[in-house]
């Protein structure tokens, strides 16, 4: 009972608290981070490939690496991150209330969230779309055949609204069973409560491979019913921190484009003659000072987590359990949508 209200109460209390102490919060997240010595990073309670703790409590994933890269750039050490697991209802309140410095929790960039919550989305780190997972034995090959089916999903997400929009537009009646936690929702599906499960396609792949009793019994339907550009968020009103949260991921994307990797960064720092590479490894013009950081900010970020392509491969790509194709998440010059404004 009590813990049902705990997030709610925490929010109310924090709102009241920062209501009383508003001036102290005016900007300067960077100063607070330096003083504290850690970056507080809001993540999921566990979505494979994006942010999930292992049995020793070590976090890994694409979103986790974004936070580690920022910690490396700002504090010089990728380990100096406090991960704060949040469910989808808690995430926004936690950022608004200042419990975290950055929310890297596979959150879809939408107009409402961008304009009405007091946040800024930084850089899209993953292009996703919402899909459906169904048991093979139902012999369903398209989402349009799901008439009168029951669909399990998680509350407080864009998924819940998209599924409602999609089937309303198609005039296909479906029922949804909505759970508070992601885990409860997929467990209900795998136990047979629902005929379909819906969430972002990336998470579907992870679920089928990691959670299904037998992965071969399930198929992902071809329809993607939405665009889900996933991006980290920061609070509005602190442009200095916003810039850091934007340019660290951009630098990792540019590192892939210009061939700077975790392995060759040291060697390029010593020998590279390419100005684009030199800027990334900290031997060219000093871009760090424009961000309130030192010259080696992007070098440390690359050394910590590798470039975007390496991050992708390790967490969600061929070297991970998800084995997702690069697809839309390939670089712009290789047919994908991943594009960083020039780091110069």
């Amino acid at each position, binding site marked *: *009972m009590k813990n*049902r209200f705990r997030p709610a109460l925490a929010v109310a209390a924090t709102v009241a608290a920062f209501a009383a102490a508003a001036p102290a919060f005016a900007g300067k997240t960077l100063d607070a981070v330096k003083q504290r010595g850690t970056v507080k990073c809001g993540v999921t309670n566990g979505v494979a490939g994006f942010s999930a703790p292992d049995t020793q409590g070590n976090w890994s994933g694409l979103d986790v690496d974004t936070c580690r890269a920022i910690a490396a750039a700002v504090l010089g050490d990728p380990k100096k991150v406090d991960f704060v697991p949040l469910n989808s209802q808690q995430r926004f309140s936690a950022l608004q209330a200042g419990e975290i410095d950055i929310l890297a929790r596979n959150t879809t960039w939408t107009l*409402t969230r961008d304009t*009405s919550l*007091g946040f800024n989305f930084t850089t899209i780190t993953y292009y996703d779309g919402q899909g459906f997972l169904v048991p093979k034995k139902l012999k369903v090959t398209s989402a349009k055949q799901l008439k009168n089916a029951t669909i399990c999903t998680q509350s*407080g997400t864009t998924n819940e609204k998209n599924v409602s929009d999609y089937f309303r537009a198609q005039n296909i009646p479906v*029922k949804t069973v909505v759970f508070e936690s992601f885990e409860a929702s997929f467990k209900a599906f795998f*136990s047979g409560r629902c*005929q379909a499960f819906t969430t972002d396609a990336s998470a579907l792949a992870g679920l089928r491979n990691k959670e299904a009793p037998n992965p071969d019994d399930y198929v992902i339907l071809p329809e993607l019913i939405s665009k889900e550009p996933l991006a980290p968020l920061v609070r509005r009103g602190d442009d200095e921190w916003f810039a850091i949260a934007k340019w660290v991921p951009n630098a990792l994307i540019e590192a892939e484009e210009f061939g700077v990797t975790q392995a060759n960064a040291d060697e390029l720092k010593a020998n590279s003659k390419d100005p684009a590479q030199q800027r990334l490894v900290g031997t060219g013009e000093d871009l760090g000072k424009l961000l309130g950081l030192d010259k080696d900010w992007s070098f440390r970020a690359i050394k910590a987590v590798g470039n975007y392509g390496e991050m992708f491969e390790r967490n969600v790509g061929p070297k991970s359990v998800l084995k997702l194709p690069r697809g839309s998440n390939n670089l712009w010059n290789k047919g994908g949508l991943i594009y960083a404004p020039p780091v110069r």
Partner: protein
Amino acid sequence: MSREASRRGAWLAWVVQSLLVLAVVAGAFWVVHHALEVLRARGVRSGFDFLVEPAGFSISEGWLDFDASQPFWRAFLAGLVNTVRASVPAAIFSVVLGTLIGIGRLAPHVLLRGICTAYVELLRNVPLLVQLLMLAFAIANLLPDPTEPVRLLPGVWLSKAGLSVPWPASGEGGWWPTHFEWPERGDFGVSGGAALSPEYVTIVAGLSFYSAAFVAEIVRAGILSVSQGQVLAGQALGLTPVQQLRIVILPQALRVIVPSLTNQLLSLTKNSSLAVAVGYPELVSVANTTIGSNGRAFECIAIIMAVYLLLSLLISFGMNRYNARVALRGWR
């Protein structure tokens, strides 16, 4: 004390209390006003204007039909109705079951007494959330798949999708039921008729079983509070044990039972908010979804608080009226 002095004292007390109420209201107003001001300054949209906008999510079970094109206020109303839909049956079941177990704990029969004691100790010492999740897990794993439902009776099907029964339905546009709608087997399980969803059964059963343990203790204390002489008097009149209980003991025990029972019903209603964990769409679930889509945490929590306050006051009012009826004359 002279009459005039006592009148002055009453007047003074009235003034002091009024000032106190005024101070509390002003304080609360200031906190809310200031918090909203700060939210606005931080670029967070706030206010209750969102309640008239379309909700964009659907609620798939409950007494009040709700689809995504309807406004948020109606979603909250549907959530409130669903809270009541779960709490009222749970309250009735828990009082009935709790009374039986409470009496059972005082039974002369050793085995019966042991079972009732074990029930109380087990159920009241395990957190309700854990019990709910266990129930949900049991239902999810024991029942047959929706595509292979079990036919219990003609038109009555049981599966993981719930228990489907025939239900009166009205024809096109009419309010009056004209025929029975029979559940039928479809591609994805049973459809039509009325269905008790597993989520609903989980929350009603979970709340009933849990609260019954507390009700049992209240009933036991009530019975023990009735003096032994009343029992002996009943025996002397030649009443059977059941008659003694029904005519002599329980009516007197009610005076002790009712005030504590009120507290129990209040906590049962508030505990219904745990339904969100097992997928039943009640008030807190609707509020969570709303917070997820527009971030109005402050407003949604205010609504939750106001609604539970209102429900609690209603229950207190009703139970106090009942208490006044069973109370010993002269105590008031």
